[in-house]
């Protein structure tokens, strides 16, 4: 491209071509979404299996989510180094998903505290001579997690105009309502379904698309 004067139509063509080129230059490879889809679906299915077949793993399977933070950070740094361009929506996405990660850990922390308070109330009822109430906070806590799962998924879907994530986000929120009326093993199945629809499948779609674009 040389420095030369142009007609107004040529100017518009240059603007339009370059904006299209810039848009096509940054695309998510979907690795983070695949990683978290697999981790959450695995943890949920494992919890479902433990509850259904009455066995216990020697460790809390949900600790996998803490372990997954390390490869997420490594992937994010590697992606950042590979990119020659930073888009505006990429910055927004980083903030949304970082806030999501922190929200999840804060919700788990708060849920544990509320669960402990539930236990104290039940102990008090039992100590007062009443029957121990058959109500478990864990039957409801999945709803909060699923509501939070849906938020960044739908924000990403809206900003990137990515329909598979829109569908996934809706599955998360519908599951959040459903788990209020189902038992804990079913909650875990719905959690696995939500993680698969919200992250794993969209992540695989993004990965396949990015490979096709690299080959082309």
């Amino acid at each position, binding site marked *: 491209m040389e420095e030369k004067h142009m007609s*107004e139509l040529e100017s518009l063509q240059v603007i339009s071509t370059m904006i299209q080129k810039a848009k096509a230059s940054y695309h998510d490879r979907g690795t983070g979404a695949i990683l978290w889809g697999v981790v959450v679906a695995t943890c949920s299915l494992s919890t479902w299996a433990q509850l259904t077949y009455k066995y216990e793993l020697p460790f809390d399977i949900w600790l996998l989510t803490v372990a997954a933070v390390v490869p997420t950070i490594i992937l994010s740094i590697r992606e950042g180094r590979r990119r020659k361009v930073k888009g505006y929506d990429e910055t927004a996405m980083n903030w949304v998903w970082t806030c999501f990660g922190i929200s999840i850990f804060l919700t788990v922390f708060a849920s544990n505290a509320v669960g402990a308070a539930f236990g104290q109330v039940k102990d008090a009822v039992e100590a007062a001579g009443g029957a121990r109430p058959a109500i478990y906070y864990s039957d409801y806590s999945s709803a909060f997690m699923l509501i939070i799962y849906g938020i960044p998924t739908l924000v990403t879907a809206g900003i990137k105009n990515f329909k598979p994530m829109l569908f996934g986000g809706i599955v998360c929120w519908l599951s959040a309502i459903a788990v209020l009326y189902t038992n804990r093993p079913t909650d875990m199945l719905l959690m696995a379904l939500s993680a698969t629809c919200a992250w794993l499948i969209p992540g695989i779609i993004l990965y396949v698309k990015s490979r096709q674009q690299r080959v082309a």
Partner: protein
Amino acid sequence: MFKDLDPILHSQLRLAVMSLLISVREAEFTFLKEKTNATAGNLSVQINKLKDAGYIEVKKQFKDNYPQTLCSITEAGITAFEKYVRDLQSYLQTGAA
């Protein structure tokens, strides 16, 4: 005919660089070179003209022990680009009328 159009922007390569930078937050020199198919020397000259006009910011740093040049559009650049597009539109409308 184009006397009212910003002369800094009304040049193919500079306009291409501005159009790329308006769409992103920050871009490497190599990215601009790749997308515009310009030579490094020519692109460097045009980037300096845009920088001198205050339309873009150029940041030089090291990445993995290699020099890296990052370019981003400034507020003045965005305003100038928007005005240029408005002026172009008015030319087109005048031409169509």
